[in-house]
């Protein structure tokens, strides 16, 4: 629906980054897993714990060990935790959306409960738009309802319910960092 003319990998990544930034996401493009892990550690500051997906679903090899070494624990469903880390099933270039599906090892709360969401996205998972994603799922023979829930995330949680004044971070995360590997 949204026109995306140049569908080369580099162009899709650039388009995705620019659209996601328009929505209020912070986009970090990294060249290696090591650089990505450093970015995650920088964003975590001195936090002792995180919510996250199982590390096999997060495309940063070595992240588990690095967090371990830094003394950062992975906990489940704790509302006091500041940062949630997830992988991303697909990025939609035309609208800057993150597609997250549910399943074993991919808790929903990791992208919902903490005020900061860090999403790790592989460049190869960026598709032109929502329509192309649905088409791709069908082509791969995947049932579109095979997952429990599919959510498209477009930037930080927001509202305008108080006199139309835009405010971020109502119930969902007020900050969304996307690390593109």
């Amino acid at each position, binding site marked *: 629906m949204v026109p995306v003319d140049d569908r080369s990998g580099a162009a899709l990544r650039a388009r995705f980054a620019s659209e996601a930034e328009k929505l209020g996401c912070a986009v970090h493009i990294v060249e290696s897993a090591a650089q990505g892990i450093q970015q995650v550690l920088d964003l975590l500051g001195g936090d002792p714990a995180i919510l996250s997906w199982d590390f096999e679903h997060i495309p940063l090899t070595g992240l588990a060990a690095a967090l371990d070494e830094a003394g950062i624990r992975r906990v489940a469903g704790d509302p006091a935790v500041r940062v949630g880390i997830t992988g991303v099933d697909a990025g939609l270039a035309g609208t800057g959306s993150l597609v997250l599906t549910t399943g074993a090892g991919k808790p929903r709360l990791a992208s919902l409960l903490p005020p900061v969401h860090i999403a790790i996205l592989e460049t190869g998972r960026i598709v032109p738009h929502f329509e192309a994603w649905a088409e791709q799922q069908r082509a791969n023979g995947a049932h579109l309802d095979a997952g429990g829930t599919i959510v498209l995330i477009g930037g930080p949680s927001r509202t305008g*319910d108080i006199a139309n004044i835009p405010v971020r971070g109502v119930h969902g995360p007020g900050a969304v960092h996307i690390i593109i590997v």
Partner: protein
Amino acid sequence: MDVQSNNFIPAARIAIRDPQLQAALHASSTNSTRARAESLFAFGREHGEHMREQAAEAKRRALRQLPDLLERAEARMQANGMRVLWAEDAAEARRLVLDVIERHGARRIVKSKSTLTEEIDLNTALEDGGLDVLETDLGAYIVQIAGEHPSHIVGPALHMSKDTIRDLFVRELAMPPTDDAEQMTQFVRERLRQAFLGADLGICGGNFLIAETGSLCLSTNEGNGRMVTTLPRVLVALVGIEKVIESVDDFTTLAQMLARSNNGQVMTVYTQMIDGPRRPGETDGPEEIYVILVDNGRSRIYGTGYAEALACIRCGACLNACPVYQAAGGHAYGWIYSGPIGAVITPLLAGLEHATPLPYASSLCGKCRDICPVRIDLPRMLLDLRHDLVTRGHSPALWSLGLHGWAAVSGAARLFSLARRGLRWGLRLVPNRLPGPLDGWTRYRDLPPAAPQSFYELWQERQKTRDHE
């Protein structure tokens, strides 16, 4: 809430004199309408119109096969582990919700904004049953605390100023005084966070229901919709039967049109497709999902010339564009649906006799039709409803008398000519205001003086001169 739409005129008269409401309406309407145009036509007018065409076609196609799609959706949802219940009217829908609550022994209920639950007055029924029900959309929460009703289908508290909301929070919730909307929002976040974590049942609506996959679709911005559909063990979704669409492809179109038409977002922050309860190996998500498909008058509308009103996706664009809504605000319409779409579906759902002024709450300027993402011809239906009002004898007696008189006089040449002359003489006698009930015409404008000769007389004179030549 009771339908109070027959009070439209006095209620609108008060609303027009409320400076705070007028300021709020003006700001939000112009903002939304401008943002919608910028976003819809970001890739050119033709592209935007093409998107509208696609969206309109998706909903029309869905309506044409409504019964089949509902059965397909039901089968898919059941296959995916959701329980599907059908409610013919509001009372049955309320009873079904109460049954589910009782079965699971739920006490603390969190809700994500749903106009359908307002339509069937669900909160009152739950509160009467001694249950704690909390609205969690910020606007809906504000309105709930204030003991009011939403004034806009998308922005429930759109009629309230920041100061009013601040005072409300300070008074009702003991919020430390602040003028900052962000701090006020954070205060609510903290409060509702506890409610989400402690809730045992969630209630939500549904923006779309996809027959192909049995997906319950929700478009939300704040994240409360995700909380309600993730944290409590049991989820109950109430969905109008007209919300079913054919395919995921239609959803991709409609989800984008909904957000663009509402406030210019390319998509809402969270666009969810819920395909079933928690699966083995998952640590969160509802263990049971009930979807209640609510008719409440919709199938009756389906069989009439007003069926296209069922294509509405509740984006609110027609409210924001309507000069009558902008002046009168949502509450004047007397029920949950306001603006042009409210003027059409309130009489259809609640009964024409309970909403006789609404078909006239329009200047027929056509902006609602021009802005509608699914091209609903609202002015046509407003005219048809006016016609229904007359044929069913709901028009004011004086109005009928006047029109019958006019029909009699204009149907007889001699009578018409006599009346014309009489009227011209009569007009010389009255000042520039008409007497009695006709005063409505001249209260805000001068009565124009009658021409010395009518067109008809001029014409006759010219014909005579011609004959002489």
